[in-house]
């Protein structure tokens, strides 16, 4: 369960499709002039990602992986069809987008009309293919996690395009220098938003700078009482590689590794949190005097 929550928040904030990996920038820049169209495209991207990433996971698991063809018969076990990934993924995506278009047209003509040209264009949106390729390179382990990854990456993209559309609507009344107007200032604002989102990097390390100390301290004591293996999910994915032995490739941003003493010494952690809260309280007194 915790894996799901971690993947969900990690894909929205830390590995955000726009700010961390720049997937889907072309349509992000083209469609973000009005909030209403941005919302429509964002919703469509969430839906398509939620459909194609799990499907491509199944393809990857049963056809494309090294040795995946063993279910056909033992003589097929050493075939590696990995090089066909690109063409199979893009074929699935193009087909699913076409299917989605037909279904939406049949069941909700109003939505179909408001999305207009964007729905077919999603097939060639880097974000969709990128979602599947990252799912493959990060070795997502189960169908449920793949579905989770697809939907949460979509939500991250939706969040990004929504915020830039809102900002662009407001900039029209600002005094932007003419050469920067339109495209230039959008690039710079997106860069600044990217820097802001980098601050989420400390969110899931479980270290001293955890953004939500309340929930981790509440859960750490009970979890560790059950088993130390359970508590290891609080470590970053990089730590999880060494403990679980997965062949995960870590994400590109640098991660702080929490000291392993936290797993065993949860008392120290609780004490540290209490000490921090006491410090905060006294600071508040100091400034309010």
């Amino acid at each position, binding site marked *: 369960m915790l894996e799901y929550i971690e993947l969900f928040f990690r894909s929205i904030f830390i590995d955000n499709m726009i700010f961390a990996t720049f997937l889907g920038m072309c349509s992000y*820049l083209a469609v973000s002039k009005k909030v209403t169209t941005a919302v429509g495209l964002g919703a469509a991207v969430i839906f398509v990602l939620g459909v194609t990433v799990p499907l491509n996971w199944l393809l990857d698991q049963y056809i494309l992986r090294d040795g995946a063809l063993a279910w056909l018969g033992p003589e097929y076990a050493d075939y590696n069809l990995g090089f066909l990934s690109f063409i199979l993924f893009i074929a699935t995506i193009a087909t699913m987008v076409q299917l989605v278009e037909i279904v939406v047209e049949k069941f909700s003509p109003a939505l179909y009309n408001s999305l207009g040209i964007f729905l077919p264009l999603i097939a060639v949106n880097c974000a969709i293919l990128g979602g599947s390729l990252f799912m493959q*390179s990060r070795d997502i382990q189960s169908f449920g996690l793949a579905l989770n990854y697809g939907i949460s990456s979509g939500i991250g993209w939706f969040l990004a395009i929504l915020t830039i559309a809102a900002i662009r609507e407001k900039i029209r009344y600002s005094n932007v220098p003419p050469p920067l107007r339109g495209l230039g200032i959008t690039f*710079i604002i997106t860069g600044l938003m990217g820097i802001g989102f980098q601050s989420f990097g400390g969110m899931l390390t479980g270290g001293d700078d955890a953004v939500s100390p309340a929930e981790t301290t509440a859960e750490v004591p009970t979890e560790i009482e059950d088993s130390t293996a359970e508590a290891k999910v609080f470590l970053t994915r990089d730590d999880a590689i060494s403990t679980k032995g997965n062949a995960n490739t870590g994400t590109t941003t640098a991660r702080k590794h929490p000291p392993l003493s936290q797993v065993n010494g949860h008392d120290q952690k609780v004490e540290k949190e209490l000490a921090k809260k006491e410090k905060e309280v006294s600071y508040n007194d100091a400034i309010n005097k």
Partner: protein
Amino acid sequence: MALLTKKDVSLISDPLADNNPITIQVLGICSALAITAELKASIVMAIAVMFVLGLGNVVISLMRNIIPGKIRIIVQLVVVAALVIVVDQVLKAFAYELSKTLSVFVGLIITNCIIMGRFEAFALANGPWRSFLDGIGNSLGYGAILVIVGFIRELLGSGTLLGYKVLGDPITKTGLYATGYENNGFMIIPPAALIVIGIIIWVQRSRNLALIEDN
């Protein structure tokens, strides 16, 4: 028939400045931002796109009269995917370290808007030689921006160029580092590429006032 008429030369020179695919046509942004932390990766990506776009343009242009209208996009996707698979396998075979740096972005050349954009806008309506030139021109324009951004980011962010330490050694404090200079860590993180390209756009549009957008 002359091999390179004046119009043909403009097919190559226009995308380098006035019709640049990244800064003017706003295509191909995704990969331009993500892999430019190193100059070597930028150069290799530019060459890969040149290969895919040049050959792809020629193939689509040769097939342009036989492709049925309804499955146009699918045919284009198949052609691009096949070429990208070739590029990916060649990279994995001859430059494995680099293919790890580029990771999924080689695959993302398939959805690189420049390629589909040039197919639709040019290759479907023009002969093979001119399509080839158009492909080369646009990928040169794309490569120019990539190399500029990669150069700035690698030089300021790690003090190296193509892996060679050009400003001195940061650990033993020789060269420029002896004066107290430090590498700018901001240039390594992804958002730096966005801001560098924003500044490039600013410079380009200040020099060519015709490109300024109206509100």
